[in-house]
Each structure stands twice: as C-alpha cells, then as structure tokens.
C-alpha cells in the first residue's frame, strides 16, 4: 500500500449499482490532479469493471488514485481477502456472459497488476499505467572526468539527471540508466534509489541505481562508470557498491539482486545464484548479495523441483528445512498476475491466489502470452508461501525450467524461465 495520504479516496458499496460512480470519481480526481485524460479513462474503466464484479458480501470497496509521476495507479481495497478474483487471470477462457469478464478486462487494461494484504484480513488490488517520455538529444560527457573525490552521495536531481544523460549517451550502465526524466520521476515516487560518485569539481563520474524487487529485495542496475577502464574505475565500482550496501544496511531489505548485470559490476562482491537466458538465449548469471546473515529457514518445494532446489541449497550453503507443501485450500480460482514488457517480448508471472487449479492456470497463462507473441517467460515463486508451489507443475509443463534460487530465510525466491 502506498503511503500517499494526499491521494484522493472514496469508499463505495460493492456491485454494479455504484460502478459508474467509481468510474466518475476516477475521471474527476484524475482531471483535478492533472492526470492525462487517456490514462484517467483507462483507470476509470478498471474501477468500473472491478466494482461491478465485486460480490455483494465483499464489504465497502475503497478507491484511491495515486500519481506516481512515471506511472498512475488505482488502488482498490477490500476488507476481506475471501474474494473470487479468478476473473483477473488473463488466461481463463472468456464467455461474454461470464460475470468475471469485467475482471479480465480490468487486468488487460493495466500495465501491471499487484495484490497485497491489508491489515489482518483485507486485500488491496493495484492497477498501474505507465507514462511515456518523449525522446531527447543527449550530449556526451566532457573529457577529463575524475578522479573520485570523497564517498558516493545520494545525489540531487540535477546531478542524477546529468549522470543518466551521460551514461545513456555513452551506452553505459544498462537499461536502468536510460531516460533521465523517467529515472527522476521513479525516484520522486520512492521507487528508485541512487548513489552517485563525484569528482573534485562535483561532476558525476559513476552511479548505481536500485529498485524494489518483491517485498524484501532490491534489484541493482548499473554501475554506469564514466572513468576509463583501469584500477581507478574498478575502485569506483567497489565504492559505489559499498555505498549502496551501507545505505541499505539495518533496514528491511535482505538482499540485492542483479538480473541484468552491466559489464562493470564487481562480480566478486556477489554470488551466482543461477542463470537466466538473455534475449539471444545466452545464459547470463543472476547475481545476489545478502545484507543480513541467513539463519536458515523453511522452503516449501513442489516435488518435481525438489532435486533442483536441493542441489541449489547445497551449492549455496543454505540452511533450509525443505517441506512438501500442503495442497491449496481452495479447489478452484487460482490467479496469476502478469507483468509484460512488450518491447523486450518478456512476460513475468507471479502467483496471486493459490487454488487446486493452479497448475492449469499457470500453463494457461504461458499459452496465452505465447499466443500473443511473447518470447521470454519468467515466473517468480516465493518458496516461503506453500501455496506458490502449486503453480510449479503447470509452469514446468509449459516449458519453464528453474533458473535461479534467490536466498531469503523468510522465503526464497525461485525464478523459472523459458526462451522461445
């Protein structure tokens, strides 16, 4: 749940009678807050469909509209998690007469769908729409940057923008160091963090970015290093990483994940926890750096992945009790959320609700997006949650294979991947 107390909010009874009221609230709040009409209209449609599909016993539904600058987000909160949200799963066959078709449409309208628990028994659905950014011309960095002066800093906006522009102009740092306005907007929304190294003239000479990856991890991007290759550049990479680790230590974050390492990332500071195929099909290492000691934990492992997980646990030296997960409580109604990156042809699937039909739902999701032309498939299962294991069989049957195990004593993350 976002902590934006200033976001416009409304509470409405569930069901179709108030669905249009919810839609008009979103349009009106969007217009008042300066959100583009095309984005507000899409979110209004989502609000209408979800409200209309909410069962009468769901209790009052809260709506909140957040402008996160790089994206807009509609949150719908329910006082109970005991809802039939199967319609949100895009892979389910649609019958126009099906009551759940509204949820299906809502999920299709969003760029990203998230769920999270609220309080003791509630559920929050989040629908995100991304903003676009116009292309810009970029100047290359000036000659003679460096050397490093002092410890890397949490930069001001101008310094961060300058670094991203220079990195983009030079093709450095990977995908994270692109489109400075977007990077600044993500940071302003609290969804991106940075450390930047400066030279004696306070000019940026390198940086690292990180963003949330699940609830207890951060994904690192970069580093972007503007010094010529050599010992000074290597020391700069280490200084940036140490600054990032220092900034995150003693907080809620348990580890740093690098899914797409830039060439200058200091590999010795990480462990390799698996490999993911890149767009060309070449396996690339998944790097991980724990911030806290791992005292061991429980991993709920589906039987068909037990051998792979056992080997990974041994290789990584993890202290784990491997448990066989109990079957889900619900017979039907499993849901997966899909995050799509159409430019990269990649879809990432995450379980939202487990049920006895989880395997079929998982396989159906892969088939759906394969049919839409996606070529890269990833799935993230939280082995700390017994229900997630139920999705594994369907994912494997659909051609995904275990690729990496990201350690977290409170719930290891198992990445599965396939490349068409």
């Amino acid at each position, binding site marked *: 749940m976002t902590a934006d107390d200033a976001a416009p909010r409304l509470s409405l009874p569930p069901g179709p009678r108030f669905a249009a009221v919810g839609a008009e609230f979103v349009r009106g709040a969007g217009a008042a807050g300066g959100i583009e009409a095309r984005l507000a209209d899409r979110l209004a449609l989502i609000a209408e469909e979800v409200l209309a599909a909410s069962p009468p016993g769901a209790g009052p539904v809260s709506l909140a509209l957040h402008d996160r600058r790089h994206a807009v987000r509609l949150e719908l909160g329910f006082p109970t998690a005991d809802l039939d949200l199967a319609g949100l799963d895009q892979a389910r066959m649609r019958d126009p007469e099906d009551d759940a078709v509204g949820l299906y449409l809502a999920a299709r309208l969003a760029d990203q769908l998230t769920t999270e628990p609220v309080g003791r028994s509630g559920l929050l659905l989040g629908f995100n729409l991304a903003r676009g950014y116009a292309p810009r011309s970029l100047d290359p960095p000036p000659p003679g940057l460096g050397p490093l002066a002092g410890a890397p800093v949490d930069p001001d906006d101008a310094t961060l923008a300058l670094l991203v522009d220079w990195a983009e102009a030079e093709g450095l740092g990977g995908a994270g160091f692109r489109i400075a306005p977007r990077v600044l907007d993500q940071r302003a929304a609290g969804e991106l963090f940075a450390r930047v190294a400066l030279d004696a003239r306070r000019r940026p000479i390198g940086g690292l970015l990180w963003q949330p990856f699940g609830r207890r991890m951060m994904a690192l991007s970069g580093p972007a290093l503007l010094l010529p290759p050599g010992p000074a550049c290597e020391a700069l990479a280490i200084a940036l990483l140490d600054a990032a680790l220092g900034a995150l230590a003693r907080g*809620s974050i348990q580890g740093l994940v690098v899914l797409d390492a830039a060439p200058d990332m200091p590999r*010795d500071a990480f*462990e390799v926890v698996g490999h993911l195929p890149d767009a060309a099909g070449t396996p690339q290492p998944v790097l991980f750096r724990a911030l806290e*000691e*791992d*005292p061991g934990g429980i991993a709920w492992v589906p039987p068909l992945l037990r051998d792979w997980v056992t080997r990974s646990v041994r290789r990584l*030296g993890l202290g784990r009790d491997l448990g066989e997960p109990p079957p889900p409580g619900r017979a039907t109604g499993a849901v997966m959320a899909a995050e799509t990156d159409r430019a990269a042809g990649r879809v990432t699937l995450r379980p939202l609700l487990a049920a006895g039909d989880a395997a079929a739902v998982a396989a159906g999701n892969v088939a759906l997006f394969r049919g839409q032309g996606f070529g890269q498939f990833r799935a993230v299962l939280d082995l700390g949650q017994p229900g997630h294991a139920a999705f594994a069989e369907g994912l494997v049957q659909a051609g995904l294979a275990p690729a990496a195990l990201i350690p977290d004593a409170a719930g290891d993350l198992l990445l599965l991947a396939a490349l068409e």
Partner: protein
Amino acid sequence: MSGFDLERLVPAHVASFQAYVPAPPDDVLLRRFGVTHLHRLHNNENPLGPPPAAREVLARWDPAQAAIYPQGDGWHLRRAIAAQFGLEAEQVILGNGANEVIGFVIKAFCEAGCNIVTADRTFAVYEWLASFSGIEPRLAPLRADGFDEAALLRAIDAQTRVIFLCNPNNPTGSWWDHARLERFLEAVDGRAIVVADEAYAEYAEAPGFPDSFALMARHPNLVVFRTFSKLWGLAGLRIGWMAAAPAVAATVRKISISYSVNLLALEAARASVWDTAHLAATRDHVRQGRAGLAALAARLGLPLLDGIGNFAMLRLPMPDTVAHRRLMARGVMARAMTSFRYPGWLRVSFGSAPAMAAFAEALEAVLAEV
C-alpha cells in the same frame, strides 16, 4: 469485533521499523546446516565463562527462590560497583543487559523532535532504539575506522539530547584515550548527554584508556555504560549497568524499570566484582586469541582490523554473508559485517583454542572455494 483498526493505532515510527529477528536456537541451526556442533565466535562471549565465585553462586542456587521477586534495584550490587569505582551507590543504575540501559537513557532525555548522535558503523542498538522510539538517529561517519569527534560535533544541533560513543568501538576495536574524551566533552560543553559505552573497557590494558568515572566528576553530562556480558561471562543472565552524576542518575532512575534484573544475575554479578584473577586470565586468553588470529590473517593474506576487545575483523575476498553461511555449514559461527556497514568483513570473537582452530580450518576451506 469489527472496529479494531490496528494500523490506526500504530505510530508511524513503529510501523516503519523492521523488527530484529534473532537467530533460531542452536538445535534448529544444527539441523538446518547439517552439523553436529557450532563453535560460537559471533557474539563476543567469554569462553572462560564467569569467575569462580559467580559459578559457585549459580551452583548452590536454590530453585525454590525462583518463586521470589528479586530485590528491586540491586541494592547490594550497586554498592559493590560504587565501592569499586569510587562512586555513590545512587549513581549506579542496573539494567537487564546494557541494552536496557540504553533504552533508559533515550527514554529519560529524548522526546518527539529530538535526535541522538552516534557513528554510522558501531553497535546497532543506539540507532535501533532511537528509531523505534520515534527519535532521529544522526549517524556521523567513522574516520580511519574510529569515532570522529569533528563529524560528531557537526551532527549536533539544538535538538540533540544524547551522543553515544562506543569506546572501544564494536566492531573496529578503535578507542579514544582519556585526553581525547576529555577534549570532546569540553567541546560538547554540556549541550547534550555524552554516553561512553564501555562494554569492552575491561579488555583495555593501555594506560591511556579513559578513567571515565573521574571525568564524570568534572563533566556531569557524561554517562558510562558497563556490562557483565563480556569479560565477566554472564551474557546468559543479562545484566548491565550505568553510572552518572547524581542529578543525571536521579533523572534516569525515574523511568528505569525496577525488578527487571533477575535474582541469579544480581547475585552472580555481585560475586564477580571485581575478580582480578579472572580479569587477568581473560586478558591473557584474549592476547593469545589475538596473536593466533593475526597469524592466520598473515598466512591467508587477509587484512585485519584489530584494537581493544575480545574480537577482531578480517577482510575477505568474498561477500561476508556468503562466508557466514559456509562457515555455519562447517560448524563455525562468526559475524558477517555488512549489517554493521562493513561489507566484506567478518568479525571473529576470540573463542576457545578448539574453536579458533576449527575457525581457521573452516575459513581456509571456504576461501579455497572462491
């Protein structure tokens, strides 16, 4: 019940704080890591245990006394400590470990809008206790692995109520001598309480180590923390103490928790004060441990950070958190230092000879896998 809204009732500084999760008990760790023994080199405990007199107290303790409350403020123990250091008994306040005493001081002097000042790479509990009490912790960077008085003074403002110095510093072992501490107190000039946390002071053999109790007479804003958990080998009983000028101690006593120190801890600690033979034996053990670890570091080519205390740090050519796991899988517990903002470093307590030998063997095996 439908009206219970937990989120509404929880203060923001509590809601945003991440609970500290201690490691599971050893039996669980043994099972999870598949080992039959764990050498404890992670908590700076004294492998010699408590002094003989304290052992005797524990051995002859009558279990029937468990039904009786302890004396509420450690009457006898406070007098024993006061006599040892030339203080009045009312200047001494006991706590359930020094951690509780840290909480007493923050509670006594801080309110919403105030801040405390300490270092970024030191014992975490000052920072944690302030954070979840709604008090801003201001962290001054260490300089050359030691507390930097200039950075600390820069961090102080009108809202600063307490400055925490860890002397010697955990985990670096760096320390301020008497003159340096006095200069700092003069520079602070009474603007804030200055805590000298001397949990490892008994390991100091250098003549220049501060006589903080003497400084307290000239600087009534100085508070000194000590503990029975380290050199005195009573970590499992949880007992620490603080001393302060009479008016400061009287203020802290208002909010201190009476009866929080248990019977066994009070009696064992009282019997430990001030066993010079135990002190000498432990210091001798630490000297041997330090020499052995230095030799290991030299043999393996690992940088060593060492000072006062029953521990030292080694810089590893691999992530410390990975080394921690792999050492656990070989039956050795050492402390990964990323959480102390020393990424890549491992803190090792000077344990028993077999424990240090097991550590050396395990570390060599772990490094061979890099």
